[in-house]
């Protein structure tokens, strides 16, 4: 994503720039800033300021112990958060979600895209749309629907399992809730990732396949040895999206909580923990510490991932 290094930028300067900074260019510089100005205002007010403010809040403590005054406590909140078992277990849980959910989603999306890329039938076009439709459905509605489907009272599970004479498993129980959440998120996002991968596949020049076929490559070899490496940069991008999204996990477990209260505590994910600290306990300083700590971990995680895959993604 560091397109400062993209080849386009290395192109020799046009005739206009070679003259050196003239009066005209200085004037034009101001136009650049002018076009940037509206976004910059929003960027400062709703990204940089909240970020700095969250950091400021995390360095202070306010409560009964401090007499309702906000006092500077340095990194005490961070010492607390990184030894807080609720935060740590929430982090471990979203880490586990990343390890399970991201490979499933990407694997399914790439498989469907590869299959679609070899077909041009009416069924393949229709299924491309059907697979994508869940992306157009808000996560809240998706979680509500799956909550109904999982429910022993409304859902079809009792009927379906009854057909073979079995008792339906309780998808909302403590043991199964993890898998049930993985299923909801997979259902929601695979279509979106599939469309990105599919578009990347369509952009490959088909003559490449002909050359491979002449060399004796079969369909599987073409898919795994040629197509997948050629779409590596798209795959890196969707993994980063999935990674950032999963670490912020909030909506689905929050919605399912009311139907599966025993299985999902308010500390289930770091974001849910921050929310309940802020809005149930009014501990805004500590909630900001949780949010900021989560933000740092997400940032480091995605940065490390992009660094590790810089060859595949073509980023430097």
């Amino acid at each position, binding site marked *: 994503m560091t397109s400062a290094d993209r080849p*386009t930028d290395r192109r020799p300067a046009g005739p206009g720039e070679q003259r050196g900074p003239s009066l005209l260019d200085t004037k034009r510089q101001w136009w650049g800033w002018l076009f940037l100005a509206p976004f910059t205002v929003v960027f400062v007010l709703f990204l940089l300021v909240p970020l700095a403010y969250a950091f400021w809040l995390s360095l202070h403590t306010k409560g009964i112990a401090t007499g309702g005054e906000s006092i500077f406590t340095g990194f005490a909140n961070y010492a607390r958060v990184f030894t807080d078992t609720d935060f740590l277990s929430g982090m471990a849980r979203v880490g586990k979600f990343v390890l399970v959910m991201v490979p499933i989603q990407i694997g399914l999306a790439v498989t469907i895209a590869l299959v679609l890329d070899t077909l041009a039938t009416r069924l393949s076009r229709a299924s491309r749309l059907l697979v994508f439709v869940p992306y157009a459905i808000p996560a809240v509605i998706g979680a509500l629907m799956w909550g109904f489907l999982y429910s022993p009272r409304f859902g079809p599970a009792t009927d379906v399992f009854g057909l073979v004479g079995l008792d339906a498993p309780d998808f909302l129980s403590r043991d199964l809730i993890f898998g049930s959440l993985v299923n909801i998120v997979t259902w929601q996002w695979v279509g979106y990732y599939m469309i990105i991968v599919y578009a990347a596949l369509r952009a490959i020049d088909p003559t490449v396949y002909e050359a491979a076929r002449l060399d004796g490559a079969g369909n599987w070899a073409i898919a795994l040895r040629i197509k997948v490496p050629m779409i590596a940069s798209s795959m890196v991008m969707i993994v980063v999206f999935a990674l950032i999204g999963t670490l912020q996990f909030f909506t689905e477990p929050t919605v399912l909580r009311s139907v599966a209260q025993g299985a999902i505590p308010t500390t289930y994910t770091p974001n849910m923990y921050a929310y309940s600290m*802020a809005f149930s306990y009014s501990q805004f300083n500590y909630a900001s510490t949780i949010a900021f700590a989560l933000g740092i971990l997400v940032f480091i995680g995605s940065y490390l991932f992009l660094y590790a895959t810089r060859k595949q993604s073509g980023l430097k």
Partner: protein
Amino acid sequence: MTTATTTQTSSRGADRRASRRAGRRAGGQHGPRRIGSHLFLLLAAVYFIVPLWWLVVGSTKTNSGLFVGSGGALWFNDEFALWDNVKELFTYQGGIYWTWMRNSFVYALAGGVGSTVLAVLAGYALAKYRFRGRNLYFSLLLGSVMVPLTALTIPTFVLLSQLGMINTMWAVVLPSLLSPIGVYLVRVYAVDAIPDEMLDAGRVDGAGELRLFSRVALPLLRPAFVTVLLLTTVATWNNFFLPLAVLRDPQLLPVTVGLNQWQGLSNAGAGGEQVWNLITTGALVSILPLIVAFLGLQKYWQGGLSLGSIK
């Protein structure tokens, strides 16, 4: 250099090329494998569509019909209550459902259009103007793409409450104007889509910078504009954490938060507060606009969603 442009042309000529390619490929395909592929796609399509099918069926049932019905969970009951349910949406709690729907439209439209306009202006500036600090600005922007936006919700809430803006529409709309990823996408697209020569030629002819933007750049940026508009509108429409945090007045909620509240009440409450039939019907009605928009705008998003991912 040509990547973004290639995607665009490929999406435009996709149909023709697809059929040509398919014809060529069909020769190399063997019967059984195509059956296997189709079977796999059919299974995938069923998986992705079953919850929606359940919702369509569920919205035709009465409150008690959802529990005990003649049709089971995945088929219609004898009693068809869809119209009654829709009518009840107009009367239950004074028709608050439609207020929620209106709010969702306002938030999605204001957040979507607003953030897209800002992103197009900023992306164009970063791609086509050379100024001091541009590379630093762009690095900062790329870093911010990796900042989880939900981490900003709580400090934003505290800031807005100090400004007395909590519980107003502004509290949802203003933070939604931020879309660093939108700026990034427009910037990547604009670098190739707008030739410098065209801008320079315009300048030689005496066109002002504003005129160059509106007459030369904007038409060329249309695919990026539509894509970012779609992404940001969907993001605002789907947003849950922010409105949940900054809104208390039921009259201001978007439909997502509102339906979630009905669900919570129905689970906790006694008979009178259980409105399962309204939740299913409300959910169905609320997803129709976006599904229709996506089906109608297919040719735009199919190529466009991959902007910036192809190098």
